[in-house]
């Protein structure tokens, strides 16, 4: 079998230009497929609720943009008193663009003392906590955000009319933390001119994920008759609701992925069919030498599989490297979706390319074994 695989590989080198063009086409298709799969997977991670989710988002009822969701900061004490609540943090969010966008700059204003308590998983990888505490305009910038903007500790940067000093670069297991800049709440309230005491939302951590619905209902019930009624949802459900435009857009990309798959199948099938037609006599010679039909099929399917595999490795590998390097973030309504490719996605795309290459070669393989030997030798 290995000997036949080696023969199939050598056959591919016979028409270098045709093989290269086919591999290039497959690679382009799988680049697109991997990008679409990465988008879908990133969206899935951001919106699909899991048993370990314990975060609620409290937003102003009937508001969907950070600019219009304004809640009194003092709600924090009342929320904290609700049974099942472990921690609450008031957050002021300022974004450069409320609609769906690929280039979102998000400032999250949080009380200085509460950040470490609310998000202990955040790790400062550059700069220091002392620098963050020392300056009013200090910002802890997410790793991906910093990479995208070329920021390092000690830099100053200005966005959405707010100038901050980069006190540190942070890393978090949650992609959304890696794509924002954390600043102090009172600083952001003043810098954005919304005034002290007004926040965009509260993020609430509950004791158990089973408490999510009950606590959300209790919070909304508590402020139902207040001047600023609330709408509380699990964080992922909240993202899924507010980022509707984004989700619709990403949903459309499924069709692009399907198109890429069909293009790969068509391309490999065409290339292998041409190859089989060009080697009618040669296949007849192999059958004369005693090669059974299954060996001829194996040779043709191997060539298709190899075209798919090489193109898949190239396309998926390039897409993975490109998305890693670019660190794209899609944002909508102040929420960010980090498009982070997983190795498993690239491996899946490569395996898919291999399978597609084999599937595309089935018809040409059948053509190869169905030709009568005598007629083929005369052709």
């Amino acid at each position, binding site marked *: 079998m290995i000997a036949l695989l080696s023969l199939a590989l*050598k056959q591919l080198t016979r028409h270098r230009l045709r093989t290269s063009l086919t591999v290039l086409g497959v690679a382009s298709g799988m680049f697109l497929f991997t990008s679409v799969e990465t988008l879908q997977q990133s969206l899935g991670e951001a919106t699909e609720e899991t048993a370990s989710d314990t975060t609620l988002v409290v937003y102003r009822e009937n508001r969907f943009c950070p600019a219009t969701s304004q809640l009194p900061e003092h709600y924090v004490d009342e929320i904290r008193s609700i049974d099942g609540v472990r921690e609450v943090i008031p957050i002021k969010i300022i974004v450069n663009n409320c609609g769906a966008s690929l280039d979102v700059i998000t400032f999250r204003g949080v009380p200085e003392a509460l950040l470490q308590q609310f998000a202990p998983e955040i790790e400062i990888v550059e700069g220091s906590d002392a620098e963050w505490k020392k300056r009013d305009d200090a910002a802890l910038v997410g790793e991906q955000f910093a990479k995208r903007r070329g920021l390092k500790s000690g830099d100053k940067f200005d966005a959405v009319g707010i100038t901050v000093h980069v006190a540190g670069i942070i890393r978090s297991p949650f992609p959304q933390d890696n794509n924002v800049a954390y600043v102090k709440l009172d600083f952001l309230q003043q810098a954005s001119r919304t005034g002290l005491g007004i926040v965009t939302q509260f993020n609430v951590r509950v004791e158990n994920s089973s408490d999510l619905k009950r606590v959300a209902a209790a919070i909304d019930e508590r402020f139902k008759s207040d001047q600023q009624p609330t709408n509380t949802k699990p964080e992922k459900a909240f993202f899924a609701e507010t980022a509707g435009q984004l989700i619709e857009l990403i949903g459309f990309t499924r069709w692009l992925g399907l198109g890429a798959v069909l293009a790969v199948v068509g391309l490999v099938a065409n290339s292998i069919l041409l190859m089989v037609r060009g080697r009618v006599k040669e296949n007849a010679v192999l059958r004369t*030498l*005693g090669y059974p039909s299954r*060996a001829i099929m194996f040779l043709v399917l191997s060539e298709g599989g190899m075209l798919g595999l090489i193109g898949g490795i190239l396309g998926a590998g390039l897409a993975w490297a490109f998305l890693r390097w670019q660190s794209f973030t899609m944002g909508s309504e102040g929420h960010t979706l980090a498009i982070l490719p997983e190795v498993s996605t690239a491996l899946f795309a490569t395996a898919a390319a291999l399978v597609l290459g084999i599937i595309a070669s089935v018809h040409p393989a059948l053509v190869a074994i169905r030709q009568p030997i005598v007629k083929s030798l005369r052709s």
Partner: protein
Amino acid sequence: MMISCREITKSYSKGSHLVTPLENLSLEVPRGEFLALMGPSGSGKTTLLNLISGIDTPTSGDLEIDGENIAKFPRKQLTKWRARKVGYIFQLYHLIPVLTALENVELPLLITSMSRKERRRKAEAALEVVGLSDRSHHTPSELSGGQEQRVAIARALVADPALLVADEPTGDLDRESATRILELLRSLARDHEKTIVMVTHDARAAAAADRTLHLEKGKLLTEDPNLVSI
């Protein structure tokens, strides 16, 4: 007897016509004989060669080769039989251009359970028989026509088949190369006890064989020196 054909007929449809390139042909070829088949185009000599080599099946009659009636074999069995018993030499060699001479010779062994080392050893031995050991790592494009045909003969020999069939093996070669190929075929029949059936248009090539049979319109006309039933 190596080959025993009894009243074999081959016919097939071509459009609305029934074509019968061979009709009630009987023939016997003893083991180790080098037989030449001659005749004009369309006389049925290549059809007979294809039947004997098992790449085609007769419409009727019996075709016994080395004690097995291959006319009754189903397709899969015939394929296995070919791999074991027959070496086919083509007029235009039909070597795979991306493979070296050694790899081309090794081709029939790739579908066996033989180890790589054993395959290499057998392929090298076959190349030695045809006198091309020093060209084993050359690709077909780096060989002359005569050398390519010798590689093709080594490929036909490598699985050690009892029967070699050759379809105009010297048809595309100059006289000097043709003479070497014919000498080689003679020595394979004489020294290695291979039964060889060769189709040729060339009387000089036929003269190298032990016996020559003439076909015309699907029937045997003469034989030399022994008469067979027609």
